[in-house]
């Protein structure tokens, strides 16, 4: 046997070992591949269940809904941690909350984050809805998505309503009592159903337990179901196109990018920044627990709902809606919600651009301005009954101001667009001024009548309050009402002047009449 043979003999086991290892590796690879294939065929893992997103959707406004879901996830995590210690009974609800607050590791942190994320969730849901409204994403074929989104918004408000009671503080219990009391004022079948759902027959203990069940089981289940449905529809329809259509975008913006990792990582960034903002707010403004609910303490306390229900509560505080008028007020508020839900079937035009939808954009702006005004006003006037004329003045004034601003903005925009058009066109044929269409005439007449009525009303109110002020000089309410009346009068006079300008001077009719009058005066 030569040295070479010996070396070959020595190498043989190594060679065979390597082959065995390779075979084992191949086998294990094939086993893994087979396992993966089994899972893939059963669960459809390799199926691209999330479609690619367009480049233009890399914009926070497109992901407000996703951020709302992130807030919901944080709510779920912190809520489950608190569930470990919370006891849903009137005798122990407050003490268990206090125990989480004082003795549980990071207990106050959990409670604070839960609270602020709940606020953020409601705010984000509202912003998501209003963004959808203004860019009209509810139009064909996304009508059902809008309706499901609106129901999700109501469920989110339901989370706020049911969760507010759980700490059993004097603040939360008093506010919830007001809310539960309103159920009786609702129309009959709805009233009985809601009473059965949230009140029951077991007194405070029953209410708390039902609210707890709704908050931790029923509402999350409904929200998850609706979320899954909405996600499915989003996959079917894709991300909504920009208002001006895809043609208005450069080619690069229209390109599709994969959902993973590009869009996913973008969402991670948004979620991380949102989470850090929530944590910063939680650190700077930690929760302080109000005193425990007792009937004696509640009697001294002015009940006030949380900020997201303040606008509704402020409407109910108007004198006209006191006692007997409560069902009317609740019906009006319900009507607002019904109109919002059925919006896709009300605004059926195909136009999506904001610049071409003045009526609906103005109505949306009025809604947002009124909600903000009512909320701030409610915060400033806890427990006060609002006089009718004050309510009409403030709400009417805000509506008028927003309308005039909107009309002025649209006028400026259309004028700018007209100038651009003139520059671009080489020759523009002169067209005679067109008469107002029938609907425009009706709108103008109605607006002008309202303005005249408001001017008359505010003029009378101004005189009345000024006379009252001369008699009782120290009255703060008279000063306030005087200021409001004068403001209302100014707004209505401004509106009338604007209409006169638009109708007469703008079209040159008044000038022609003055010329004709002068001609007649001179005796020619």
């Amino acid at each position, binding site marked *: 046997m030569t040295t070479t043979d010996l070396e070959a003999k020595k190498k043989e086991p190594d060679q065979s070992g390597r082959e065995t290892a390779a075979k084992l590796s191949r086998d294990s690879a094939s086993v893994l591949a087979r396992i993966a294939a089994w899972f893939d065929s059963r669960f459809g893992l390799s199926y691209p269940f999330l479609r690619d997103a367009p480049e233009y959707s890399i914009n926070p406004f497109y992901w407000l809904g996703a951020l709302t879901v992130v807030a919901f996830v944080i709510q779920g995590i912190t809520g489950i941690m608190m569930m470990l210690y919370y006891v849903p009974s009137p005798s122990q609800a407050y003490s268990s909350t206090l125990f989480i607050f004082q003795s549980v590791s990071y207990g106050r942190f959990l409670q604070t984050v839960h609270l602020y994320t709940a606020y953020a969730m409601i705010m984000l849901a509202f912003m998501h809805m209003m963004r959808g409204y203004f860019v009209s994403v509810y139009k064909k074929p996304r009508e059902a998505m809008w309706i499901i989104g609106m129901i999700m918004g109501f469920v989110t408000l339901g989370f706020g309503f049911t969760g507010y009671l759980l700490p059993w503080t004097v603040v939360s219990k008093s506010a919830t009592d007001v809310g539960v009391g309103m159920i009786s004022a609702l129309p009959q079948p709805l009233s009985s159903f809601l009473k059965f759902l949230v009140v029951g027959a077991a007194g405070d203990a029953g209410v708390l337990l039902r609210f707890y069940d709704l908050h931790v089981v029923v509402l999350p289940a409904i929200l998850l179901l609706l979320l899954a449905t909405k996600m499915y529809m989003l996959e079917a329809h894709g991300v909504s196109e920009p208002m001006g259509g895809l043609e208005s975008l450069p080619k690069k913006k229209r390109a599709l990018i994969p959902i993973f990792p590009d869009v996913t990582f973008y969402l991670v960034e948004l979620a991380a920044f949102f989470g850090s903002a929530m*944590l910063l707010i939680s650190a700077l403004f930690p929760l302080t627990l109000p005193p425990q609910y007792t009937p004696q303490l509640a009697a001294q306390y002015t009940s006030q709902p949380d900020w997201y229900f303040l606008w509704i509560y402020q409407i109910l505080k108007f004198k006209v809606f006191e006692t007997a008028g409560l069902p009317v007020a609740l019906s009006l508020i319900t009507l607002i919600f019904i109109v919002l839900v059925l919006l896709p079937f009300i605004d059926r035009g195909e136009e999506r651009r904001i610049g071409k939808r003045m009526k609906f954009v103005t109505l949306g702006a009025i809604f947002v301005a009124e909600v903000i005004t009512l909320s701030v006003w409610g915060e400033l006037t806890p427990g006060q009954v609002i006089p009718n004329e004050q309510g009409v003045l403030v709400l009417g004034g805000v509506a008028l101001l927003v309308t005039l601003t909107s009309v002025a903005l649209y006028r400026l925009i259309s004028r700018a667009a007209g100038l651009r058009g003139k520059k671009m066109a080489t020759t523009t044929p002169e067209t005679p001024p067109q008469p107002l269409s029938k609907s425009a005439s009706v709108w103008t007449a109605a607006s002008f009548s309202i303005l005249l009525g408001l001017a008359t009303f505010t003029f009378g109110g101004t005189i009345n309050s000024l006379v009252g002020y001369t008699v009782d000089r120290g009255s703060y309410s008279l000063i306030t009402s005087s200021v409001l009346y004068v403001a209302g009068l100014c707004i209505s006079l401004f509106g009338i002047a604007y209409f006169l300008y638009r109708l007469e001077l703008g079209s040159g009719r008044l000038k022609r009449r003055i010329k004709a009058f002068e001609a007649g005066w001179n005796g020619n």
Partner: protein
Amino acid sequence: MEWKLSTTSISKYSTRIAGLFVMVEVVSVVFLWSLNPVSLAQQAVFAILLAIDLISLAMISYVYRSCKQGNQINRVVVIGSCCLILIFVYISLAL
């Protein structure tokens, strides 16, 4: 002044930037474990440190995404995040 890094230097800078934020993450996590979980003041510090962690995570994700897509890394975003982290550190020391 050019506010975006040139594409040729993306890989060089991206590694450094990502490394910096990973270090910030590690340090803040180490500090997280040294806090007293029942103390009310230290719960606020916990929240701030967690916020710093999240900002770092967002920046690592941003750098990765920019590199992958071949986009330029926006210097304003990186410097702004660093300033934000410094402000957060200052707040956590003040609490």
